[in-house]
């Protein structure tokens, strides 16, 4: 028995067949073939319970939140705040006041960049990021550095796609005010050693923000254990709707931050002379929020927790390992990103065939993958490729999906032979 097969015999089982039935979209055929969806890192599909929760909200108790005294508003407000409480327990925050609803990871990071970093940074200060960051955890810091005179510093990755720990440590100093790093790389699957990197950052007194967009769908997250100050994530990559996400921020930091958008809901008292602001999290939630999104996120969390994130993690780790092994068998396929610990995805190129040609041919086989630079151009530069093909996994994927992917890659090679 190979080690791979041995381990798979021990893996805690997710009932993939039963799970697939929970995703209405998986009944679709694409180009006449059953859909194999391997693009969950871009956006995951939604289980029926999430879709039904949104329909139920609009059909039964839609109203604006926080203001009405009527029954519908009370019910909508209760559901919205229940969702916040769910997010709190999901990331093991101390208080629901530490959870700000946002549009997604990008908005969460921009919130911290504008409301925490921009008023506090100046010349001589540094923001440390890693080379594997998504543009959304890079560009907001570039914007802030440009405005404040702070310097953006980058911790490099090695040939496997791991951030080099010594290089990271060497770039930390008293000048480092903030460290921003991904929990899991969306382009390479690398799992950063966030707890260790945070511990080092704390020794120099830096604030740490973790981009958790690719973390929360795949593993249990405990912000206390990670030790970070901010943790940002999107709902739509973890089975919830688009347009909703959450920012965890330590209460003491959130309470010290000025608002970044003004409007309704975020105020305490308004006169023409002086306006006072609501405490966190409302202070950062100006305007009518994405109520159905929050409700959908709450339901998605409940659903994921019932599946058990440890089992989800084990299941997807098996898929990553299996896909890595199967793709490595194909001459001409080069894996991009072979970090020591990876989660949720494999990234690769097929000889010198452009990733978009691979993506188009796989689509013809009913296999949906991502082809491109994955909003991580510096990572593509590092590996000297214009783009990669990325297959990313969700709970409804099985080894049979990887087999369809592998057959599709062989078809690419036939066409380009």
């Amino acid at each position, binding site marked *: 028995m190979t080690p791979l097969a041995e381990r798979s015999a021990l893996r805690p089982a997710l009932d993939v067949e039963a799970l697939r039935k929970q995703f209405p979209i998986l009944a679709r055929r694409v180009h006449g073939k059953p859909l194999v969806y391997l693009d969950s890192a871009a956006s995951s599909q939604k289980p029926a319970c999430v879709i039904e929760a949104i329909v139920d909200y609009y059909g039964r108790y839609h109203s604006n939140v926080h203001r009405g005294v009527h029954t519908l508003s009370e019910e909508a407000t209760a559901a919205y705040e229940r969702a916040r409480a769910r997010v709190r327990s999901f990331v093991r925050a101390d208080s629901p006041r530490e959870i700000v609803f946002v549009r997604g990871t990008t908005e969460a990071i921009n919130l911290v960049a504008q409301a925490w970093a921009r008023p506090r940074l100046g010349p001589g200060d540094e923001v440390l990021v890693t080379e594997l960051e998504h543009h959304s955890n890079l560009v907001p810091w570039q914007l802030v550095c440009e405005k404040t005179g702070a310097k953006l510093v980058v911790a490099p990755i090695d040939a496997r796609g791991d951030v080099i720990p010594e290089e990271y440590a060497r770039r930390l100093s008293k000048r480092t005010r903030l460290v921003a790093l991904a929990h899991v790389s969306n382009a390479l699957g690398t799992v950063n050693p966030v707890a260790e990197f945070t511990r080092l950052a704390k020794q120099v007194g830096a604030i740490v923000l973790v981009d958790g967009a690719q973390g929360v769908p795949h593993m249990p997250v405990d912000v206390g254990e990670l030790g970070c100050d901010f943790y940002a994530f999107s709902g739509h990559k973890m089975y919830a709707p688009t347009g909703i996400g959450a920012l965890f921020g330590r209460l003491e930091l959130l309470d010290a931050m000025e608002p970044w958008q003004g409007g309704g809901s975020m105020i305490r008292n308004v006169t023409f002379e002086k306006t006072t602001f609501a405490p966190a999290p409302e202070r950062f939630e100006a305007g009518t929020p994405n109520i159905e999104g929050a409700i959908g996120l709450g339901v998605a969390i409940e659903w994921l927790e019932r599946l058990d994130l440890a089992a989800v993690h084990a299941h997807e780790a098996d898929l990553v390992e299996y896909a890595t092994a199967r793709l490595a068998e194909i001459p001409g396929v080069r894996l991009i990103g072979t970090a020591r610990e990876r989660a949720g995805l494999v990234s690769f190129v097929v000889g010198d065939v452009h990733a978009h*040609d691979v993506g188009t041919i796989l689509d013809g086989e009913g296999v949906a993958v991502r082809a491109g630079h994955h909003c991580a151009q510096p990572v593509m530069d590092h590996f000297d490729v214009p783009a990669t093909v990325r297959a990313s996994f969700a709970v409804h994927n099985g080894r049979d999906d990887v087999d369809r992917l592998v057959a599709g890659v062989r078809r690419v090679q036939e066409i*380009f032979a």
Partner: protein
Amino acid sequence: MSDLRDLYQEVILDHTKRPRNFGTLEHATHRAQGRNPLCGDQLALFVEIADGRLRDVRFAGKGCAISTASASLLTEALKGTTIDEAHAMFERFHKVVTTPSDQPVDVSTIGKLAVLAGVREFPMRVKCASLAWHTLEAALAGRADPVTTE
């Protein structure tokens, strides 16, 4: 979707693997850059014009199969034509590849370039087929900014 072979026809694959007129042109009178950064496609187009004719056309760079084949086919189609004929061919080619696949279009107007008409079935790939042509227009117009079709 029609068969993938409609998109990846033998002629296209042949031009992808062995691009014609590939390389730089020292005596180019006109040149332009085409870039589709989201794809990572990069293309430089060189044209030598004398007496109102495109005496030589070459391209360099890297891209997907469709953009490479399109650039290669362009160089073959335009060598020796007048500037007016080149513009007219651009117009006809553009019309063919941007006409939705559920509407009829006369591909006989573009000669050998008709092998690229299959991109109509793949709306996301039209920008790949048209990059070289927009780069040509920029070269003829003497525009220095890189062209993009994204």
